[in-house]
């Protein structure tokens, strides 16, 4: 694009309906799949919408993940909470090669498929207890409160070694952080508050290392001589936030998808071997983290026939890619049989979600257990009255009133 005109379209866009991407995504993908838009800060940014191009952007070293850089594109006014933070706070999400690989590997052993499998009995126990409570309580009930939030929150707290008793505190601050309507000042304040909390927690673990992810990281990094509290605060913060908001919203939306598609729910119920396929399709279909895969171009690159210049911001639009008919035939159909594991709901490239196999495990156990224990679960209000998170950077539901 050589024009210097101001692009007409401003991101982020709102989904057309709870189950459909913003209408503009299709148009952009078909007419100009790599195109310039405006950000809420009044800057310009490229958006990339085809599945193939999104994968290329996210796996190319010429696009930097350095969220601390002042030119890194952000989709909220006033910049993200990471902009211009001190270098010492950099964690893997904001690193590039060659720094990123070793940082990710330091914690990767905690998230392997095998390690997640070892958590299965405990996650099952958590889900069973929460469903016991749900069944013993009044109808209708809010599934978000009863199941969607506590499952991932309990699991990530145990994994990290964060007291679950503090969950209301960090959930409240997290929801302020991901709400687009929160002011820049409010975001910074929430950010500082959670950082301070995590710093105090790590100080205690430094004095007496606990057998949990954060405690083990302290021991391991100290042995290597690379321990920095600031960096581990960032990592702990990242895992805590990423570990509950995302999975919680997928539990709510996935449950809704099962209720709205009873034939497919029956197929999953009849054969739990299909649950993971259903989970992959839910991930693709909703792509709740649609706007987190921004990058800063650091060397000129050609993507989809367009030259992106060093210094320009790019957003790889996951939801547009996951509805690209070139990659997923009949992309707007929810179809657990489609075999769409090549979706980019967890991102792509070196930063692809570290906790993806934890998320899969939690979702699989929740849906298997829900279908078995509350087979007649239904909505207590019409779909169009459900409060969807159109104003948050992670899509989902504020409440999901259900009955049975």
């Amino acid at each position, binding site marked *: 694009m050589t024009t210097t005109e101001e692009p007409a379209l401003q991101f982020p866009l709102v989904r057309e309906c709870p189950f459909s991407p913003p209408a503009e995504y299709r148009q952009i993908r078909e007419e100009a799949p790599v195109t310039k838009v405006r950000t809420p800060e009044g800057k310009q940014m490229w958006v990339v919408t085809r599945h193939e191009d999104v994968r290329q952007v996210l796996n190319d070293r010429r696009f930097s993940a350095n969220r601390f850089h002042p030119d890194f594109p952000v989709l909220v006014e006033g910049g993200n909470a990471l902009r211009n933070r001190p270098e010492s706070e950099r964690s893997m999400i904001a690193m590039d090669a060659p720094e990123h*690989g070793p940082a990710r590997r330091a914690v990767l*052993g905690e998230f*392997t*498929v*095998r390690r997640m499998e070892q958590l299965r009995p405990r996650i099952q126990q958590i889900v069973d207890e929460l469903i016991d409570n749900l069944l013993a309580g009044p109808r209708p009930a809010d599934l978000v409160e009863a199941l969607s939030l506590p499952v991932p929150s309990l699991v990530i707290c145990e994994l990290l070694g964060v007291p679950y008793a503090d969950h209301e505190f960090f959930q409240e601050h997290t929801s302020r952080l991901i709400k687009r309507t929160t002011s820049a000042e409010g975001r910074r304040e929430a950010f500082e508050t959670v950082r301070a909390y995590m710093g105090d927690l790590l100080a205690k673990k430094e004095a007496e290392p606990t057998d949990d992810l954060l405690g083990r990281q302290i021991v391991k990094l100290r042995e290597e001589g690379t321990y920095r509290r600031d960096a581990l605060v960032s990592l702990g913060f990242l895992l805590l936030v990423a570990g509950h908001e995302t999975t919680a919203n997928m539990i709510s939306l996935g449950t809704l998808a099962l209720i709205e598609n009873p034939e497919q729910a029956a197929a999953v119920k009849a054969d739990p071997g299909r649950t*993971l396929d259903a989970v992959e399709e839910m991930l693709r279909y909703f792509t709740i983290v649609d706007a987190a895969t921004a990058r800063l171009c650091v060397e000129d690159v050609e993507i989809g026939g367009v030259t992106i210049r060093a210094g320009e911001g790019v957003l790889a639009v996951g939801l547009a890619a996951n509805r690209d008919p070139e990659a997923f035939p009949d992309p707007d159909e929810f179809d657990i049989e489609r075999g769409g594991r*090549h979706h980019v709901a967890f*991102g792509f*490239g070196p930063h*692809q979600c570290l906790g993806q196999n934890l998320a899969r495990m939690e979702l699989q156990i929740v849906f298997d257990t829900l279908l078995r224990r509350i087979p007649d679960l239904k909505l207590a209000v019409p779909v169009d009255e459900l409060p969807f998170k159109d104003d948050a950077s992670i899509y989902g539901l504020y409440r999901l009133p259900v009955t049975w």
Partner: protein
Amino acid sequence: MKIIADTGKCVGAGQCVLTESELFDQSEEDGTVIVLNDTPEGELVEKARQAVHICPSQALSLAE
């Protein structure tokens, strides 16, 4: 056919293990890929192709 894994590129997403645990495992130490059987035959050939396609860091390739 031979599976080639570049552990330097691997980011330990575990997608290959999910695709076929007879072919792939992950190091307990740093989560990177371990190829359990680098010469798949029969049905495993298609699984290997799928793993190569899905791998987020393109750390896997096939030599025909």
